[in-house]
């Protein structure tokens, strides 16, 4: 029963990891920006949701809207006012990474000062677990998380496959030259990528806030997961990142059968390292280009 319980938990965690990782992978794949502040986007969304529900006492739908608005705004502002100026004069991996990292530190500490550094969690009526079978406690969140992820993935898929902007984004990740044929400016596309990539962290942020809870430093954990999933899935493959996120969530939880929770990051590292050694191009990786 315990194992089944862990698998269910793994499914929930994996589903939201998949979304977060897909967001990072989408941004990285199409803009080539190593968006380390993706973790900060997550933190902002989660705390906005927390603020809306706990401090303002708003309905959860408004909370979700605030979280989504905040995440998208943060992503687009960073793209416009941080990455764009950097890329105008150089845009090497070094400068982009450092700036992104720096903004992550700022966000973590500002949130820490405003909301405190201790753990928070938002309790909603859905957080409470019900005993589905003897000894098997399932909170409705599990189903909801999986469902939301599926809906998001279908939506992203439709967007990328069937809209003009979506096709241009895909083209951007495959081949910069091709984009010109779509008649969209790379800057505009970059804003789309950031908006879409950032909004994908929102479900994850909300589910984390309502189930396991979080603190201002959660961004690093989110980044580790996103990076690991992007590599394990194969750089440039959104589908790969999603599968890898699911895999990592599963491994982390199912392993609780044998080891304590403090080892969950160690397990992520193990999965990542395994792939780096044995299959560096990831699940769906194409030939690595140097």
């Amino acid at each position, binding site marked *: 029963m315990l194992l089944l319980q862990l698998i269910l938990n793994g499914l929930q965690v994996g589903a939201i990891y998949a979304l977060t990782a897909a967001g990072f992978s989408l941004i990285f794949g199409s803009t080539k920006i190593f968006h380390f502040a993706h973790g900060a986007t997550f933190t902002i969304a989660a705390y906005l949701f927390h603020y809306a529900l706990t401090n303002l006492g708003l309905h959860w739908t408004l909370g979700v809207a605030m979280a989504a608005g905040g995440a998208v705004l943060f992503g687009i502002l960073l793209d416009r006012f941080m990455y764009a100026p950097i890329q105008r004069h150089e845009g090497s991996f070094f400068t982009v990474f*450092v700036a992104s*990292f720096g903004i992550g530190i700022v966000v973590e500490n500002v949130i820490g000062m405003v909301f405190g550094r201790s753990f928070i969690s938002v309790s909603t009526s859905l957080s409470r677990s019900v005993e589905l079978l003897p000894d098997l406690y399932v909170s409705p969140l599990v189903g909801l998380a999986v469902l939301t992820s599926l809906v998001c993935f279908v939506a992203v898929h439709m967007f990328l496959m069937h809209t003009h902007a979506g096709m241009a984004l895909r083209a951007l990740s495959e081949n910069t030259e091709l984009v010109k044929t779509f008649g969209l400016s790379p800057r505009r596309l970059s804003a789309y990528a950031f908006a879409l990539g950032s909004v994908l962290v929102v479900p994850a942020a909300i589910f984390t806030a309502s189930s396991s809870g979080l603190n201002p430093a959660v961004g690093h954990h989110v980044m580790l997961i996103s990076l690991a999933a992007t590599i394990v899935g194969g750089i440039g493959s959104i589908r790969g990142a999603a599968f890898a996120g699911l895999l990592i969530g599963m491994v982390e939880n199912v392993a609780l059968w044998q080891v304590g929770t403090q080892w969950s990051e160690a397990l*992520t590292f193990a999965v990542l*390292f395994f792939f780096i050694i044995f299959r560096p191009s990831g699940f769906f990786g194409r030939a690595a280009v140097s």
Partner: protein
Amino acid sequence: MTAYILNLVVLISIYAILSTTLNFIIGYAGIFSLAHAVFFGIGAYTSAFVAMNLTPSFFVAIPIAMVLAALTSLALALPALRVRGEYFVAASLGLQMLAVTLFSEWKGFTGGIGGVIGIPPVEIFGFALVKPWHFLILTLVCLALVIAIIQRLVHTSFGRSLKSIRDSESAALAAGKNITVIKTLSVVLSSSLTALAGGLYAFYMAFINVESFMLATSVLVMAMVIIGGTGTILGPIVGAALLMLLPGALSYLSFLPQTEIGSIQQIIYGSAMVLLMIYRPGGIVSPKTRGEAA
């Protein structure tokens, strides 16, 4: 007052060793490690362990610590550097997080969360360094040595190979450079020198725990390197001094909430990193802007 200054200088020197060794891989090899504090920690715990269980001799404890850090970094770098630069960032972040767990759990070696207490003073040829200024001299000598070694390396063919890889990996490959081996070697060298700083720290504090070796330390050292200026000798030292003096300076500003000094400090250097990357990517100590898309 002198005790305060002495303490500050020793700590700045130890951090200057950390930033100088990190600069060696960031500024000359173009490798971004978020695991610098791990090798600092390995150096500290190993030295403490040797000092308490074997001998507090500098020339025994430090080399053992350096070898251990070198081996760990080899295990990380060899696979992770075979592939793209992003992989190393990810793998080092993972290692940093794993190490914090290990440092807090492995009670026999690290004392767990509580840490290691009562590390004996370090001995050099049987002479125990108990006075703070003894230690100051030792630390300054070590810093000078580290700077000299790195300065020397940078001007050899090895240093040129590193810089060529930093500037254009594909062109370095086309020139027949085995970039995996060269990069790995640079990480191993850097990590072993980092362990020296760890050993000094453990002996100086006489007490260590996991708090000093968390991601925040890796981030702080990276900020020192970047704010000071990558790829220069002076930059990381200036950066270390600036960021170590910052908390003290901030505590003079009485209008700031004193309990939040730590956060304010991090916000300052976080913003500094962002602004520098937009306006002056070479850092404070830089003749001109650095870097270009490879």
